[in-house]
């Protein structure tokens, strides 16, 4: 993957076609993947036009990034710790969800390039657990917990809350590596399954 810098973006915005082509090559797959995920997870994307819908939405989101003389792209600051692809991925995700909610492909229907939203994405706050998410995840946890049992809760705490290495967990639980991997996979699947039941994206 080409190493894109803010200077590359400025060159592309200034009319440098080579720089622009580089941005297209780097960002298009990330946008496309995010669009595909959002469409499928949102229950769309099936049917004969699914591929075309993905490409159309990819195109619109790509253009939205460059709107207002690239305001959204210019908001990316590598000093804040997020890579460009990750930054664009978040914008694309919000954008396509917004498009799905508004039931339109019109990328201007709900402009994702508003400054406040971009600022959130540009900074670490883009990863933060917001109030509405916390409520949903609290519900998810309350539903998941009864399924785990004592050992499951312990392993969840060690693996995901404390984020301990598998080797340490092996010592603390007197379990084999394979058993811990199996538990880890099972815990993920259970959480994902309940999340899907709840309609969490």
């Amino acid at each position, binding site marked *: *993957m080409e190493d894109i810098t803010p200077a590359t973006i400025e060159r592309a*915005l200034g*009319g440098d*076609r080579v720089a*622009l*082509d580089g941005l*297209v*090559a780097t960002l*298009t*797959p*990330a946008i*496309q*993947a*995010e*669009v*595909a*995920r959002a*469409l*499928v997870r949102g229950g769309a*994307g*099936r049917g004969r036009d*699914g*591929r075309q819908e*993905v*490409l*159309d939405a*990819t*195109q*619109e989101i*790509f*253009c939205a990034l*460059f*709107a*207002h*003389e*690239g305001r959204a792209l210019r908001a990316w600051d590598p000093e804040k710790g997020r890579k460009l*692809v990750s930054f664009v*991925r978040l914008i694309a995700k919000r954008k396509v969800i917004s498009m799905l909610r508004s*039931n*339109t*492909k*019109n990328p*201007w*229907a709900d402009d994702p390039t508003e400054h406040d939203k971009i600022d959130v994405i540009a900074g670490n706050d883009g990863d933060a*657990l917001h109030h509405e998410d*916390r409520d949903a*995840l*609290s519900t*998810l*946890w*309350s539903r998941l917990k009864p399924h785990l049992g004592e050992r499951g809760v312990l392993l969840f*705490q060690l693996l*995901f*809350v404390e984020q301990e290495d598998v080797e340490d967990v092996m010592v603390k639980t007197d379990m084999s590596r394979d058993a811990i991997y199996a538990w880890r996979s099972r815990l*993920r*699947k259970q*959480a*994902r399954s309940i*999340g899907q039941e709840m309609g*969490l994206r």
Partner: protein
Amino acid sequence: MSEHDDKFVEALHSMRRADEEAESELLRQVAAGERTADAIPSDAIDEDADTQALLLELSAPADDVFRASLADRVEAQLHGERAAATQSNVISMGAFRRRRAGAFVTLAVAAAAAFVVLRTSPPEDSVDGGDALGVFDAATVGYTLTVTKSPKSSRGSDSQPAEGAGSGTEEDPLALQVPTSGEVQWVLRPDQVAAAAVGAKVFVRGPDGGLIPAGDEITVTVAKTGAVRMSLQLDDAPYVRSGAQIDVVVVVGDADMIADLGDDAGIEVIGVKAPGAKRFIRFSVD
């Protein structure tokens, strides 16, 4: 919820974020051609095989033509914004801005701009290729117009309210009647690129739902990659008002044919696909 449980909720959030990132990254690699779909483990993305297959299918790499069109389109968009910033009489169709009584009023136009396919009579002729449609194909046309937003509001004569519009206020925008202009651009599909001679005619959907010819000073340019750029001046009409929802139907076809559209019964508009529409809609304009 206890503080203890709070940590589990935070962990769930981190887990889901990590899952999303991992899934997105796998799909990105597929879309970038860095990894083939069959190299993805069967349950790496989703336990449901059908869902995973669909995700991988939709993430298949876009071809070079698509990417080139993307770059061309963005280039045209940037060019359009720069031009709009310097040309005082061009404003966006995405957000018409009005200067009235010293204040700007944003007219959010859901410019359901559309692509219309033309053909000549007899109507039973095939729509696909070959005939007057040239390379236009009714089954595939319908690229969404990119409605550009100008960073500048309209100025000069365009920004002045039309005569007789004086009864309107920002609180009562229905009476606003101002001439507007706009610029739209879009990209033809690769198989349409050869139709470089393109004319355009603009209709707006009037209050009764019918299509009314609108627009003046329409210019269209088509780049070899298919990027189409069009600027126009919308007529002063009572339904062009603040907050109005206007369907702008753009008729695209051979430049010679389109000049007589609306006057020449030999040309029939056979369909339109609006940006948000799922299906190609057939209709006629007398």
